[in-house]
């Protein structure tokens, strides 16, 4: 065959790789894992629509009334409002304080910088249970016990360091010369921040914001010990319903759980809509 023949021939088909044993094991394990999770979730969803369900594969009948009852009877709407309020407040405050702090930590070299970084890791990696009670006691001591302020404050404890730690590498990847250029061309601190730093840090800020939101939605122990009946969030309300000795019907708690899941998924979906870094940057252009 001449070279011309080779060039004119059909493009070589990419050989299909035979799966290796490791790949098979990984896929099977991953499949089992996903199946179990989906199964559990599905059972919760089904139960929330069940009239009664005692064993067997399918409940005796289906109804949507549990959602109505959950909404009216157990302070669900209140809990939902509290969750939204706390989530937004924690995200906003954590970003407002954490982004500048992360900036300083990334840009200024000072003695003990690594110690500070290490200390910041503590509240993130420690299980909240280890300090939730003491934190709640402190809140009650200063007279904030049971208030929405207290709920927001305790949730800031692990999330603020989280924002700082996420922002540090994002700041480090911005060349100091770019900041210098902004200054030389007439940007004061405010403009430097709003016109150069924030757009460049936006992907990091969005990522940090989402993680903070997820953490706040799921923060049970922290919120549980400081909140009162009128300030509790969805998870806390859910726990209250499940552990109520009076015996709230199973489907009712399932309905609450589904509501919680929907809120979490919705929040995440909305946030992820913006988080792709390239997208975030592209939005800044005409």
């Amino acid at each position, binding site marked *: 065959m001449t070279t011309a023949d080779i060039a004119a021939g059909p493009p070589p088909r990419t050989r299909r790789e035979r799966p290796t044993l490791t790949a098979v094991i990984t896929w099977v394990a991953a499949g089992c894992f996903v199946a179990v999770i989906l199964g559990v979730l599905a059972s919760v969803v089904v139960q929330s629509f069940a009239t009664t369900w005692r064993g067997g594969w399918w409940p005796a009948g289906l109804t949507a009334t549990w959602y109505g009852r959950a909404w009216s009877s157990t302070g669900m709407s209140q809990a939902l409002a509290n969750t939204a309020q706390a989530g937004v407040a924690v995200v906003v405050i954590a970003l407002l304080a954490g982004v500048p702090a992360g900036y300083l930590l990334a840009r200024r070299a000072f003695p003990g910088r690594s110690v500070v970084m290490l200390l910041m890791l503590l509240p993130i990696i420690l299980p909240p249970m280890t300090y939730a009670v003491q934190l709640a006691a402190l809140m009650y001591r200063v007279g904030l016990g049971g208030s929405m302020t207290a709920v927001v404050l305790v949730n800031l404890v692990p999330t603020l360091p989280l924002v700082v730690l996420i922002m540090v590498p994002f700041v480090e990847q911005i*060349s100091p*010369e*770019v900041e*210098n*250029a*902004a*200054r*030389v*061309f*007439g*940007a*004061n601190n*405010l*403009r430097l921040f709003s*016109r*150069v730093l924030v*757009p*460049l840090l936006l992907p990091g800020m969005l990522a940090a914001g989402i993680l903070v939101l997820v953490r706040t939605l799921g923060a049970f122990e922290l919120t549980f010990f400081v909140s009162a009946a009128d300030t509790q969030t969805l998870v806390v309300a859910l726990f209250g319903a499940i552990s109520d000795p009076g015996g709230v019907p199973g489907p009712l708690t399932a309905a609450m759980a589904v509501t919680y899941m929907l809120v979490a998924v919705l929040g995440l979906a909305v946030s992820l809509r913006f988080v792709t870094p390239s997208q975030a*940057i592209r939005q*800044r*252009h*005409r």
Partner: protein
Amino acid sequence: MSVAEQTTGAGTQGSTFGSLQMRQVSRWYGKTAALTDLDLELAHGEFVALLGPSGCGKSTALACLAGLQPLTTGSIWRDGKRIDSLPADKRGFGMVFQSYALFPHLTVARNVEFGLSMRKVPRAERRRRAQAALDLVQLADHAGKLPSQLSGGQQQRVAIARALAIDPEIVLMDEPLSNLDAALRIEMRTEIKRLYQERELSVLYVTHDQEEALSLATRLVVLRGGRLEQSGTPEQVYTQPASAYVAGFMGYRNMISARVEQVESDPRRVCVVAGDLWLQGTADPAAGLRAGSEVMVAIRPEDIVPGRAGVNDVPALAEVVEYHGRELAVRARTERGVVLHFRTEKPVAAGARVTLGAPEERVLVFPAEGRAEVPDDAHG
């Protein structure tokens, strides 16, 4: 928008610039000095080229002037007012950064407009001036791209356009043509010179390139290890370098270690020996050379003439002949191994015997010193 915000960013626009001075500026990074007691002046309408090898403090000097680096000691003055505590955004300089420092999230057009929008220039005018600046650097077609989508040379030209778009009185340029190909470099060089003349700019221009410095500047400043080594008109620095170090930078490719044989009655005339090379040369009487002093002899390749010149004649063997178009660059070696570079328009073949000579006023003799800092790429 607050009133305070309105007044910021305008810089020192409006006032006419007389002179900018660095006085006895030192800048230390930890325990190492990047600048030591540096005096530098840029007067209105001057084009000062700052020369020196890598790491000698050129960029640091620019950063100090622009207010991007704090001074360790010394002061900076503009028209008799001390400005070293004035923040960078109030100085109103145009600047081309060595690393370009374009805003990665802004398009080319927005990058060029940045300084104008900080100065609250209305949008239509901003567009027009950015467009003009981009035309100047031949990048009008790329206005909508992000910096990451440009080649290095294109990015560098955006940086030049950004500095010129604000129509500054003072422009600081840190090797603004380093990344361009030869043809474009010469074109941009002419463009910069034209702008400098048309707009009465005052320019401080960092470069490694001797030819660039000579063709653009009204004054050359040579730095050495953070100190001023020589300052003068291009002609002064070119024909009368103050030291072997400066000579090495100004295209004196023949740097020969030698010993003084005799100082004539005219103390400017010295006779030196290096191997089989006996040379009549010129020295600064202030250098205090005596018979036996170790010296460095500097001769430009263009000043060595093949064929008997009558003075300083020495026989040599042509070793390497490079074709440079109009002329040949030849490396020759004398019998005792002294290497000489010269240029000639007459044909010379490798291996040919030649006799080389040089006029004694073009044979410069300097006190010997370490030559390690003189970079090889400084020869034109």
